[in-house]
């Protein structure tokens, strides 16, 4: 059924997201936009540009750099920031490790995904940010499907799923107690396809790894892992070259590639419509357990 869909972007979603961004700036003293270099945060930057036009985007971007990013993502980030004249704060997970606040994982599944929460919470405290705008969508994962648009976190960044504030109509209550902060999700109601369709409509640039390219990969647990110096491999995991692309962009140690020839946006959309695997099916970090995301959220993950 999905392949017959006429993908006209639902304008109501943009109107809603712009409304949410404006409420965030009006209700909080120091909002910040959590920027990963992925398509969802690129979409947020576009929405912010539109929400305050002809004024400037009235907040900074914050990038928590794990040190395990795809080089293409970092390159793109720097290009975007320069082109649009944005302010960006970069904080490094490596510093948290050096300070002894976070400890590197070991073994072949080692990643810095969980570690970035430590760096993020420190950056929030340091910058005194009371609202962190994120590109999470409710269709991504079932714990995210439960989250409010203004999601209150305690001093330790924790999400209390059982005690969420009621959120009625489009009335947003951003009042918080000292030490608390709010995670704001303007594109909560967008699906993966909505985002792609928006990228097409708005003619947005995105990192090259979303498009088909040749790269060294290894096969592990039925997934194609990008081969890099960050990945701990075993002797029998031999890298080989393959045409792939990435459907979601996280770290090189927790994002799997999909075999693909799609090198244009239209082809990517056609591919997603026919895909039998969900977007987060390529997120190795979600596969740790059924409640992986809920547990990370409780710990302050975005």
């Amino acid at each position, binding site marked *: *059924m*999905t392949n017959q*869909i*006429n*993908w006209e*972007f*639902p*304008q*109501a*979603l*943009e*109107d*809603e997201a*712009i*409304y949410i961004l*404006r*409420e965030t*700036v*009006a209700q909080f003293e120091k909002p910040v936009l959590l920027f990963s270099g992925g398509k969802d945060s690129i979409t947020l930057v576009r929405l912010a540009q*539109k*929400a*305050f*036009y*002809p*004024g*400037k985007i009235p907040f900074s971007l914050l990038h928590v750099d794990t040190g395990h990013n795809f080089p293409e993502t970092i390159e793109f980030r720097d290009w975007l920031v320069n082109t649009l004249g944005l302010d960006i704060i970069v904080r490094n997970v490596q510093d948290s490790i050096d300070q002894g606040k976070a400890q590197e994982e070991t073994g072949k599944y080692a990643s810095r995904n969980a570690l970035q929460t430590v760096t993020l919470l420190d950056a929030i405290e340091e910058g005194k940010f009371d609202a962190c705008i994120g590109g999470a969508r*409710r*269709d991504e*994962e*079932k*714990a*995210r*499907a*439960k989250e409010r648009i203004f999601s209150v976190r305690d001093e330790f960044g924790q999400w209390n*799923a*059982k005690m*969420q*504030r*009621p*959120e*009625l*109509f*489009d*009335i947003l*209550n951003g*009042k*918080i*107690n000292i030490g608390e902060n709010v995670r704001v999700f303007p594109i*909560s*109601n967008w*699906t993966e*396809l909505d985002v792609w369709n928006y990228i097409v409509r708005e003619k947005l640039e995105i990192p090259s790894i979303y498009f088909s390219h040749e790269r060294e990969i290894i096969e592990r647990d039925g997934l194609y892992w990008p081969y890099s110096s960050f990945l701990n491999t075993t002797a029998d995991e031999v890298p080989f070259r393959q045409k792939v692309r990435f459907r979601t962009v996280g770290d090189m140690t927790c994002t799997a590639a999909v075999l693909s020839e799609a090198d244009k946006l239209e082809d990517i959309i056609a591919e997603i419509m026919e*895909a*039998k*695997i*969900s977007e987060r*099916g390529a997120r190795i970090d979600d596969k740790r357990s*059924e*409640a992986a995301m*809920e547990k990370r959220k409780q710990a302050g993950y975005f």
Partner: protein
Amino acid sequence: MEVLRIATSGSVDDGKSTLIGRLLYDTNSIPQDKMEALHAASKRKGLDFTDLSLLTDGLVAEREQGITIDVAHIYFSTPTRKYIIADTPGHIEYTRNMVTGASNAQVSLILIDARRGIVEQTHRHFFIANLLRIPYLVVCVNKMDLVDYSEARFNQIVEDFQQMLDNAGFKGQEVKFIPISSLYGENVASRTGSINWYNGSTLLEYLEQVSFDHEDRNHPARFPIQSVIRPRTTEYHDFRGFAGKVASGHFSVGDEVISLPSGQKSRIKTIEQFEKQLPVAHARESVVITLEGEIDSSRGNMLVKTNEVPPQLKEISANICWMDQLPLTPGKTYLLQHGVNRVKAKVQQINYITDVTNHVQVTDKASMTLNDIGRITLKTAAPIFADPYQSNPANGAFILIDEFNNTTVAVGFIE
């Protein structure tokens, strides 16, 4: 492409989550890896079938207990439209989450277990759908397989429901009854042939043809100001625009408007949507409006047309649903947020609390507790410009915020 928002509600074990799982499954909206995860999770629970409800119960505590605690949002699309389902809990102690989920819905889907018929929860859900004035009500009589697909049983439930409607429905509400079996997929997205006496549409067919409620575009024009955009750059040195989302009605360039509460008049010079200039802005569109003359307006103020000025209220009579563990106490001051405008408000009186099962008003209550629904009188520190919820929902609702712990404690509907 349009977005249809649906709220589902049912009582414990009515099979609500299974129904949603079925809708997703039958519209090919469950990717293979999620389906495999469902098979595996069902097996771990010792079930010999794939439990589709595990798809929506996203929290550990929910999967443990097999119940829904909080609203989950689920998305699927057909060639016709995009759907957002707010899957809300049926348990009485989570009524506030149900109201949360239902507040944005155009369709309310009520599930009834064919064996049990109308229960206390059905009354509550029906009452809330009415309170929110959701225009479309779909009553799915589920588990028809467990009553041998009996037409007589279905008719009995329809008749019982009809009685409730006669007592409490509202004009313009459209009600549809469908006999279904979500476990076997009967009348959800297709027919399996088990119910040959029913010739009406399946649930999905019904949802596909529901007409969109654009009634808010015909309501009086209301533009709550979210912020003032003043770039002060060389290029836009004198630019002063009012950013907001049109709550109801529409505004055109050249319209004469009044800013409330100041009462100053002006004319709309431009309506802007990023780099585009629009001739008109409709309800729910986010725009920036600039005016001909300089007038005093800021966040929380409202632009309206000079011939459609809303009432100025300082004493408010409203139905509310109480949503906090701490009870409402008359005499206490709260923050009232109407759209994007906040004022202090004091609860003068609890007029009555409604017993939603028996449609009786109980007048001798000194306080309202969690999940109570009733009528109160409030006094605000400054006037608000609101319409009665029944005539213009987009400008007739508010929330109450506890000043001490900042949480949202109630939703109100202005009389």
